[in-house]
């Protein structure tokens, strides 16, 4: 993966495969602590402790013929390369939370990449899942909540081409304004 936004897309795919109907993605950038924290929390079916230990192991797979479950180790590696770490907490029936930390100005920190593209992809493919995206840079914050979008759309589906185009511009322009110095 070349961008953190692709890791995020991949981790959210895991959440949805685990039956999540609600996924919260949060990115917190703190200049004072020189830290960026990315959290992906879902209400999927969760994992027991055994499985939890195994998902961080790159040689683990839930199926024998396919290399699924590679996403978490790759994300963990991206965090460690940037002086951070990755933690997962999960409980059967309670969902899963993946939290990755990064040193903000670390030379090996991957670029965040295009979060608007990641969110458009998720809304296009999973119109029935609720996504909440919360991005803060120190005291500036942007929140995108598909629940709010759907309330305004009424009977128009969120994956309608015109709506997806709007979401792309909406996220892009709002993110730009909080990322500006």
């Amino acid at each position, binding site marked *: *993966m*070349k961008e953190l936004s*692709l890791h995020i*897309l*991949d981790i959210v*795919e895991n959440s949805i*495969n685990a039956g999540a109907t609600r996924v919260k993605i949060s990115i917190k950038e703190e200049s004072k602590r020189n830290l960026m924290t990315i959290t992906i929390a879902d209400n999927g079916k969760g994992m027991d402790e055994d499985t939890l230990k195994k998902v961080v192991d790159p040689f683990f797979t839930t199926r024998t*013929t*396919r*290399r*699924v479950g*590679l*996403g978490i180790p*790759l994300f963990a590696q991206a965090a460690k390369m940037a002086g951070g770490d990755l933690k997962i907490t999960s409980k059967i029936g309670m969902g899963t939370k993946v939290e990755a930390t990064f040193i903000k100005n670390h030379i090996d920190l991957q670029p965040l990449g295009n979060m608007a*593209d*990641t969110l*458009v*992809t998720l809304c*296009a*493919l999973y119109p029935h899942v609720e996504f909440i995206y919360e991005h803060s840079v120190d005291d500036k914050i942007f929140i995108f909540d598909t629940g*709010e*979008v759907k309330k*305004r*759309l*009424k*009977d*128009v*589906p969120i994956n*309608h*081409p*015109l*709506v*997806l*185009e*709007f979401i792309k*511009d*909406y996220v892009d*322009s*709002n993110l730009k*304004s909080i990322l500006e110095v």
Partner: protein
Amino acid sequence: MKSLEELEKIREQAKDLINLRKDNENKTRIVVGMGTCGISAGARQVLLAILDEIKKRNLNDVIVTETGCIGLCKFEPLIDVIKPGQPKVTYVNLDAEKARQIVAKHIVNNQIIEDWVIPNI
């Protein structure tokens, strides 16, 4: 900066188009491989290119969905195109530009681009 208020306007435009959509039962499906390898090989840009072509060409009878890993990493990004009443066609090693051409040639004009197809999987 954009605001959610603009959705009201979009809702009006989209509603007209939806009525057109309903008449058509026989839809073409495009299935994009969104496993870890797919994403890392560029599946997100392939998907966005397909969505963009669908919007530009105003295609009302195409559904885009996803599949996870199908164990064909070295062929990623890949998509299946399933037209009603026709066998599934799997395109491999795609990028955004190829994906746009598939929409133009295969989806719109019914011409399979044989060079990019993997047979019988």
